[in-house]
């Protein structure tokens, strides 16, 4: 029986970025058990602990602020939960903050609808700041951006432009650094590396895509033009 539901913000950095999403649930489950915290389980033949994440991070992508909801079958001080759990987590997963949320609060998956990324790409050939800005502006001005993705069903072409909320970039030393904000929804989303690949391709930017490094800087609840963290009261209420 679930007595307490906590929402925790955490990082997924360094080696932890290689933990696949499905494995991450097991990592949390085992860490919680080692911490001696009793989780709540689903009913039925094959009970599962009630742990629910926000949106999945691709393997190899770091996350600066991710979220998880955990339901417990015991009442416990939030600080103690976080302290005990932190000790049992692999390095790279740091708990940033937590809060108790009411039972019946909408699942993270159901409310999170925007994500921001920082993408760092080495320059293949020298690119001026001006040239980069021109490229970004031209790319954003396109009404449609078809992108061909290989999926289980074979090659599928789709328009990635509607997902893009914001894209900026700058040259920093011998790298280009982009800040990207996209919509996340039930119908899927766009992968950051697809956006940069398309930008390089369509606007002829000579970036070394092999050395591309992506970090998710946040996931949000976007509502009536405003961005909220799922830890905020406003977002939880919505």
């Amino acid at each position, binding site marked *: 029986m679930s007595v307490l539901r906590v929402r925790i913000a955490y990082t997924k950095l360094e080696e932890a970025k290689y933990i696949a999403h499905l494995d991450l649930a097991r990592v949390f489950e*085992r860490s*919680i058990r080692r911490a001696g915290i*009793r989780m709540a389980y689903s009913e039925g033949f094959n009970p599962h602990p009630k742990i629910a994440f926000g949106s999945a991070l691709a393997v190899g992508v770091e996350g600066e602020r991710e979220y998880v909801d955990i339901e417990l079958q015991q009442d416990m001080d939030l600080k103690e939960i976080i302290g005990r759990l932190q000790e049992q987590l692999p390095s790279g997963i740091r708990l940033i903050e937590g809060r108790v949320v009411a039972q019946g609060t909408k699942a993270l998956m159901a409310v999170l609808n925007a994500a921001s990324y920082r993408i760092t790409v080495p320059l293949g050939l020298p690119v001026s700041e001006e040239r980069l800005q021109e490229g970004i502006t031209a790319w954003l001005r396109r009404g449609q951006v078809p992108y061909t993705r290989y999926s289980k069903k074979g090659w599928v072409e789709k328009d990635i432009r509607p997902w893009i909320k914001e894209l900026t970039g700058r040259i920093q030393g011998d790298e280009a650094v982009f800040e990207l904000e996209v919509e996340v929804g039930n119908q899927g989303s766009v992968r950051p590396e697809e956006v940069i690949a398309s930008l390089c391709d369509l606007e002829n930017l000579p970036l070394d895509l092999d050395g591309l490094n992506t970090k998710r800087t946040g996931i949000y609840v976007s509502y009536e033009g405003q961005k909220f963290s799922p830890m905020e009261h406003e977002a939880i209420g919505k």
Partner: protein
Amino acid sequence: MSAKTAAEIRKQVERFLPKVLKPSRYLGSEWNSERKDWELTRVHMAFAFPDVYEVGMSHLGTRILYHLVNSYENFLCERVFAPWLDMEEKMREREIPLYALESYRPVKDFDVLGFTLQYEMSFSNILNMLELAGIPLRTKDRGPQHPWIIAGGPCAYNPEPLAPFVDFFMLGESEETLPELLKLIEKQKENPVAREEFLLKVTQIEGAYVPEFYEVHYQEDGRIKKIEADPRVPQTIEKAIVRDLDGAFYPTNPIVPYMEIVHDRMMLEVMRGCSRGCRFCQAGMLYRPVRERSPETLLRHAEELVKSTGYEEISLTSLSTGDYTCIQPVVRSILDKYSEDKVSVSLPSLRLDSFDVKLAEEVQKVRKSGLTFAPEAGTQRLRDVINKGVTEENLLQATESAFKAGWSTIKLYFMIGLPTETQEDLNGIVSMAKKVVELGTRMGRRNVTVTVSTSSFVPKSHTPFQWEPQEGMASLEQKQKYLREKLRDRRIKYNYHDVKTSYLEAVFAKGDRRLADVLERAVKEGCKFDGWSEHFKYETWLQSLEELGLDPHFYANRAMDYDDVLPWNHLASGVSKRYLVGEHHQALKEITTKDCRYIDCTGCGICTDRGIQIDLKG
């Protein structure tokens, strides 16, 4: 390959790691992995499992020895697995040598590289890993700057195809002998003596086999004439045995991998050895005598394991867990203690009696995923030949209780190509499967599924069937085809092993030193991961054998004579030749031999002169 430091390797690997399959195979930073200081430890060992991470990490022996070595202040042990093909390709492109997971240090820099030999089909991976490490394959081409290449595990009882590549093998259970060996290496590092002098010291350790002190002479017809031991070393090498299993080292802080591995759970080793005496079974002969752990020890292990791993499942492992005398109280205590934490129990090896089904019912209160039985042969006559002490009645009763208890999926394991097998025995497999299916349907279980799996008999060294030939491939394939047709029923699934793989397995299981050249050539031609059917290059193996003038039939399909000098004649499992010959005779006479834990000593020879006996706790 250029010399690279750990830091350089790490930097290069990090660049492409996101692009390889399952990168969490290569992290080395899993929960409970051991990070020891290179400078503060005197002997550095890399423990190598010659298969992919998720297979190697599922092996209990690997886990025991890894933590055992690290429990010594002066020793450091790190892990290395065969990188999957995509990873290997990327490493070779960038000239990254094989490195140990924990520190990214090249394995070439370690003092000892120890391989575990779990199955013959991993031999090619061993050579491939040495090559990837930049270590000369052959002992004679290596110098003091290279690590000692050692190996242990079941295939060390016939390691002859690996003899030119491995400095020495460790026969038997090495919880006690491995630390002894590492101490010897520590001394060697402080005060180096000549290679030969060092190896002579090694031969004094129980179970240590240094192949270069044994010369093999052949007859003109290809059989072995004699195996000549250097006068300074023992004629026969006896395996090492842990005498007090209850007091032996057992790691209760095992690594918890990030990814899902093959056996992803806590392992409680309830006993070692099995005295049922199935005549085809190598493990049943090699791990004698039966030694049980006490319930108190096991419950302590369980408590520590739950605390240190957080795993949700605990498996009671051994060769035949249903035979453990204290199984019921141990299972009951664990279930009582941890049910609140949703820790479940699993029993990997079950017998064919209703007692075990009751036990299974108790541990699987909710999940009725499938129950496995291994009658091994289709008729009572053939089961008597192989000394598998179960009857059709046992099977039907057990499956009836299983159906009654709610299971609807039953798996049945059989072997084909067993000595003396006839058409009737094949028909027996078919009729058994049908009887089980009908029983389930009659008992009102919907979706009854019976999965029949057959593997092809591979004669193994140190068993009563070691002199037996393997049946020819064409005939085995015909048998598989016959079963496929006869088992055509929507409620029955039929799986079978690739015959070519079993054939090559037999060649190496019964092989001698001359196969080393074949192995080396096949690896040069790209053979690796032979146990993975999609990577098995049968044609390349055949070509290699042919080019080196060796006939695979000579090894796999020849009946050996009791007087033949076997390639493993100088390696002793402790079970006497007289017993094996006697058991072979009994097999041909279709007479069974009872388990010595229930009746009198059967005279296998393991206990006599070793100051050891079967150790039951119940």
